[in-house]
């Protein structure tokens, strides 16, 4: 029997997963509080002890790790036009598993430079201009960056005509040149840049953050955690040699501070009468909503949905909901633990977090009437035909109402312009194995896929989820929309 240990160094928890590769089974999972400030080894040791107790093993044949500790991979990007190369840079960074802490377009100003220095990113992504197109902006931005003598690495992935000149301008800094993220108008080419970002992350950042000490004993860190999750989702959707995937999917991870949404789907217009506008989006797309989270970003949910809806969905009065929310903001580690009021509130918050985050991730469709009748304009990805939704996150896995919450990821006639899945099955990652399976997939894709199919809890067709959601909402006296008309 060959055993593999998979470790995810998170910002608050170190999560461990052990698998038996030969028998394609999960041996066990464990988590321990991470203490990056002091010594990451403490958390790791505690986690390992707990895991070993469950698995009955004390050593493992192989070990792979990913990390989002110490703030994860923090990036700042600059492009030319916000909707074009600006957006291409942002999508490339998010897909590489980064936390994007600054997005700039057009020419950088002195004030921008000050902000960039203050945010002190792990990597700066400098793009702008299609190949043979505008060079002025990226050259200006390279000169501006050079003037602050950046201590962070700079990845240049803009107009190829200007790339080498940018490199010379930034001589003496840690500079990498990649192919243009938008070589032609409307063509997104981000894979090479993402690979480079990941490499820098491994070589430089892990060491700078003192994570190498912990991992020396075990193995090198392979990638940022979100990147591992994205790879797991691609594998789950597409399958691999000898094992079919489950098809196009949307995945949502509702965390305490952020909500991550992944889609592995083509998303192009379905009908001839629909015109696509804007930058085509990546097949495997990740977005992060930094203002949507169950504890640190609880206010963002309320701001987006309104306290009335929180109240309606939870069955609590507005005043009571506000009191509890104020308390949760203070005590971010509080969990419902059987308290019916908190359970009801978390149910409402998680539902609204999913609704908001997936709405922002999905594309939109707009109807325009021309003299010949209807025409449609689509922007972003059309996910209406996606039939699988994967959900995870504490508030979803520690409740019996997961299906009902997940139903909020779906299309709603109240927001017909939002192209969310119309009818989907729900899969729940109760054991928190997605990142681990992304890691495992690097060497054992078939095993990783089979374990995911076995371990993710399947909730069948959401038609049922819908009716359950309907019941729950009428029971709490709500007038919420129902997914299917």
């Amino acid at each position, binding site marked *: 029997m060959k055993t593999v240990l998979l470790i995810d160094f998170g910002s608050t928890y170190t999560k461990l997963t052990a698998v038996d590769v030969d028998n394609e089974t999960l041996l066990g999972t464990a988590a321990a509080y991470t203490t990056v400030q002091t010594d990451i080894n403490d958390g790791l040791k505690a986690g390992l002890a707990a895991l070993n107790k469950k698995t009955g093993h004390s050593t493992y044949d192989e070990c792979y790790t990913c990390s989002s500790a110490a703030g994860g991979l923090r990036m700042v990007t600059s492009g030319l*036009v916000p909707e074009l*190369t600006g957006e291409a840079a942002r999508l490339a960074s998010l897909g590489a598993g980064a936390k994007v802490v600054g997005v700039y377009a057009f020419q950088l100003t002195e004030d921008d430079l000050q902000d960039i220095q203050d945010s002190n990113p792990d990597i700066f992504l400098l793009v702008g*201009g299609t190949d*043979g197109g*505008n060079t002025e902006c990226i050259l200006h931005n390279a000169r501006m960056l050079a003037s602050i003598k950046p201590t962070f690495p700079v990845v240049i992935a803009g107009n190829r005509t200007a790339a080498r000149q940018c490199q010379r301008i930034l001589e003496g800094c840690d500079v990498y040149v990649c192919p243009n993220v938008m070589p032609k108008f409307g063509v997104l080419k981000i894979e090479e840049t993402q690979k480079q970002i990941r490499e820098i992350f491994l070589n430089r950042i892990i060491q700078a953050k003192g994570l190498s000490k912990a991992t020396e004993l075990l193995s090198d860190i392979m990638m940022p955690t979100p990147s591992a999750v994205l790879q797991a989702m691609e594998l789950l959707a597409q399958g691999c040699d000898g094992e079919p995937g489950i098809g196009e999917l949307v995945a949502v991870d509702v965390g305490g501070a952020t909500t991550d949404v992944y889609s592995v789907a083509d998303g192009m217009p379905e009908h001839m009468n629909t*015109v696509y*506008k804007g930058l085509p989006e990546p097949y495997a797309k990740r977005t992060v909503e930094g203002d949507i989270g169950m504890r640190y970003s609880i206010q963002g949910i309320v701001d987006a949905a309104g306290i009335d809806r929180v109240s309606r969905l939870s069955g609590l009065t507005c005043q009571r909901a506000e009191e509890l929310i104020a308390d949760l903001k203070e005590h971010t580690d509080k969990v419902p633990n059987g308290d019916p009021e908190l359970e009801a509130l978390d149910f409402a918050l998680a539902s609204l977090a999913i609704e908001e985050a997936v709405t922002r991730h999905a594309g939109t469709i707009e109807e*325009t009437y*021309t003299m010949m009748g209807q*025409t449609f304009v689509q922007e972003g990805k059309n996910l209406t035909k996606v039939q699988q939704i994967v959900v995870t996150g504490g508030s979803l896995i520690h409740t019996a109402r997961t299906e009902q919450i997940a139903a909020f990821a779906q299309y709603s006639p109240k927001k017909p312009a939002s192209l969310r899945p119309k009818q989907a099955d729900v899969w729940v990652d109760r054991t928190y194995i997605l990142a681990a399976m992304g890691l495992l997939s690097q060497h054992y894709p078939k095993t990783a896929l089979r374990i995911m199919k076995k371990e993710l809890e399947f909730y069948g067709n959401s038609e049922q989820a819908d009716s359950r959601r309907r019941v729950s909402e009428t029971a709490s006296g709500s007038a919420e929309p129902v997914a299917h008309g």
Partner: protein
Amino acid sequence: MIVENKKKVLVIGVIGADVHAVGNKILYHAFTEAGFEVVNLGVMVSQEEYIAAAIESAADAIVVSSLYGQGELDCRGMRQKCDEAGLKGIPLVVGGNIVIGKQKFEEVEKRFKDMGFDRAFPPGTAPETTIEALRELLHMDGEQV
């Protein structure tokens, strides 16, 4: 040393809510054939889209098509937006069936020139004529493209 002879870049598309796609495709091929680098935005293109594409691709000219008769409305303010976006002086040309019905073309042309377009073309202008006019406008006379 091989000097890279940079092709002139044209941004083309059909403006507004106009879905007439055939002429646009013909122009794309004709312009490409004639040695231009063409960024084709297709149909239903907003002023902002032309401008964004022209900035990124450092375009030499924007070629607007309008077939369904609402060209005048759709083109209004485009020159000002170009100025605002830093595309000062970029050649703007328009053609197709840019206004409704039969109107004296000199008057139509004058109205479009007043709006800041460099050239406006009457219905039925052939691709060859269009290319000739663009070469003249971009000072490409005699240049091998």
